[in-house]
């Protein structure tokens, strides 16, 4: 019941803003009628807005939406030739460039971009009609940014495993292979260390944890992290320094609380690095990766949209 109420709230806002948004989206040239545009907006709004979303927020959501790009993407998905022409003029070159930057190698980039084109054009047939990936674009971010994100997802899905294997191969060429091949993991000398570490990590804010992981686990540069989070590079640098110091201190304190002397605690923290490296290698080679970005969800959304 409340769900229907919410949908009607979205609808009323859409009706209210339709004229303005329709004009802003320049729909006429790409063959999106007022009615179909209203349907698109309702669908996007219903997906975003929850039951208790106040009307003001719904209004702000629609105002902030990139309606022109949304209309273009949906017109492409619907197979409008005029829209496709605009789309290709605007994004074709950029798409290949982005693919090249992501894959860093020409043939892989081409393959990546071609795959995406196929998805965008909609080679998958469902009930006789093409399903374009563009139908899942909702105008939250820029269309160009969305295309890059989709490319990156595709790349991570398809090439990640290969990349990992390559990097491990490279690593072994560099002489790490002299380690004993994957011995039974030394159970962490002291479970207290793990507990204290987990405790300290749990206190991190999501952003701090993101910064730490991106830098120390993913090997991102300061500049990359800064751009990911939209802050200045020096901020990231300072933050990392501060976090590393604070974590060390907190773990030491945690170990102290668990009955270790200061010296013991410091020794425990500098546990033999190789043990842990092996641990990481195992976890990297394990198939523990989260499920890939699923085509299923895209389809589900499209179904939702057309339904």
């Amino acid at each position: 019941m409340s769900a229907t109420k919410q949908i009607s709230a979205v609808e009323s806002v859409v009706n209210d803003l339709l004229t303005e948004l329709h004009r802003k989206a320049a729909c006429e040239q790409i063959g999106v009628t007022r009615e179909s545009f209203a349907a698109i907006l309702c669908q996007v709004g219903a997906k975003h807005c929850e039951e208790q979303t106040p009307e003001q927020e719904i209004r702000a959501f629609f105002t902030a939406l990139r309606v022109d790009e949304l209309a273009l993407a949906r017109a492409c998905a619907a197979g409008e030739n005029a829209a496709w022409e605009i789309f290709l003029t605007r994004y074709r070159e950029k798409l290949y460039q982005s693919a090249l930057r992501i894959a860093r190698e020409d043939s892989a980039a081409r393959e990546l971009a071609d795959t995406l084109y196929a998805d965008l054009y909609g080679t998958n047939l469902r009930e006789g009609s093409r399903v374009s990936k563009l139908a899942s674009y909702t105008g939250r971010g820029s269309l160009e940014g969305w295309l890059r994100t989709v490319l990156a997802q595709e790349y991570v899905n398809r090439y990640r495993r290969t990349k990992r294997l390559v990097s491990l191969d490279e690593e072994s060429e560099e002489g790490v292979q002299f380690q004993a091949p994957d011995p039974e993991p030394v159970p962490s000398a002291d479970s207290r260390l793990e507990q204290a570490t987990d405790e300290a990590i749990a206190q991190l804010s999501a952003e701090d944890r993101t910064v730490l992981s991106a830098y120390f686990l993913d090997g991102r540069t300061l500049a990359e992290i800064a751009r990911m989070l939209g802050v200045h590079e020096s901020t990231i640098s300072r933050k990392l320094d501060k976090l590393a110091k604070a974590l060390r201190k907190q773990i030491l304190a945690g170990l102290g609380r668990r009955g270790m002397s200061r010296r013991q605690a410091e020794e425990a923290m500098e546990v033999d690095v190789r043990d842990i490296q092996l641990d990481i290698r195992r976890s990297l080679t394990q198939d523990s990766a989260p499920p890939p970005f699923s085509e299923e969800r895209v389809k589900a959304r499209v179904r939702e949209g057309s339904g």
Partner: protein
Amino acid sequence: MEGLPQIVRQRLQAGGSTSAHPDADVLTAFAERSLSVRERTSVMAHISRCSDCRDVIALALPEAESAAVAAVSSHGWQIGWPVFRWGFALAGVAVLAIGVLQYQQHSRHSMVAQREASEPMAVSVQPAAPKASAQQAEAKQPQHPLSLTKVPSRDEGKAPTASAPSSSSHVSSFSHGALPGGQVVSGPNMPTQWQQQRQQQIPSRLQALGGPIASPGAAGGGVARTSAQTQVAPADTTNSRNVEVSGGLAVNPAPSAPAMFDNSPSIGKAKAAPIQPTPVLTAAMSTPRWSISSSGGLQCSFDQGSTWQDVDVNAPSFRGAAYGYARQEVEVGKARAKEKSSDKKAVQNEISAPVFRTVVSNGADVWAGGTSGALYHSQDAGTRWDQIIVSANGVVLTADIVGLQFSDSLHGTITTSISEVWATSDGGKTWQKQ
């Protein structure tokens, strides 16, 4: 950079994400900083544990702006650079002009000093110079007769016929060679009291010397004219003896006046010269169009949208760096920002260029709003920007600004990503949350 204990890396790695990946849409909006605070928090929670999504965001970063944030600030420099260059050039010209004039001044002084090597009284007047207000002038009056009497006496002692020609030729060599046999009248830009006083005193003193002189009116007129222009006196009325007199005057009231006033008009001129091109620029740029780029940068166009320039609101001044006050304004704004929100986030946002979401302009009045309550206002079509901290009753606007409406330069409203509406009716000085 402080290393991270291995155990920390291990445990960070261990806590993988369990929640579903955000949509490409949401990740894009996250990277472009256009999510509401609530959504951003939940995405951040996910990517803090999901290396795949971190990778996706990192890989999908836009091109060209390697070190985007740094580039944003360097954009400001790129825009500012030509302006700076002009500023430097003009500052150089000004310094040169002052230098030349001071050299002139100095050489004249030294010339005079040569002539009156042991003349302490003239020096005693010098402190009077800077603020030649009426009171000061009056206060000095008792001294003037002294110095004036001394000077002529020196002239007398030095046999005017001999020294006059030499000094006038000497001076004219420094007077831009403007006039053949040009003579320098040295006491230029005096307050009228001084002139009157001098005109009254000169004749009597000179007459006491028995020297032939031009009429006081002519001498005064000569002085007045030269003060307005350079120090070259018209060579019409005066004879060499007259020059000698005015040269003497240069030592008396002149040490006060010329030292100061000789320079001030020259500074004024040097300053006036750099500023002159600016109105032309301003006229050409008077009606820019404003836009927000896809990465949230503020852009403006002076050619009706054909080309767009990035605008750095934190730059000292977008196209008026020659005006020193622009930086002050910005710094005042920054200081205010620091005072008002000392929390880390605000400081971060201040360091990085703000990511803009919306911009409105009404003539020269431009408002730009963006993430984390960033609001900038320019009253002169983008030359200077003030950051506005929006707050009411101690509550500070920290959400993203997604909408701006200004019906005139005073009345406007802000819509935020969390659907707050803030209104002002005094051009942004005070705000009411609705």
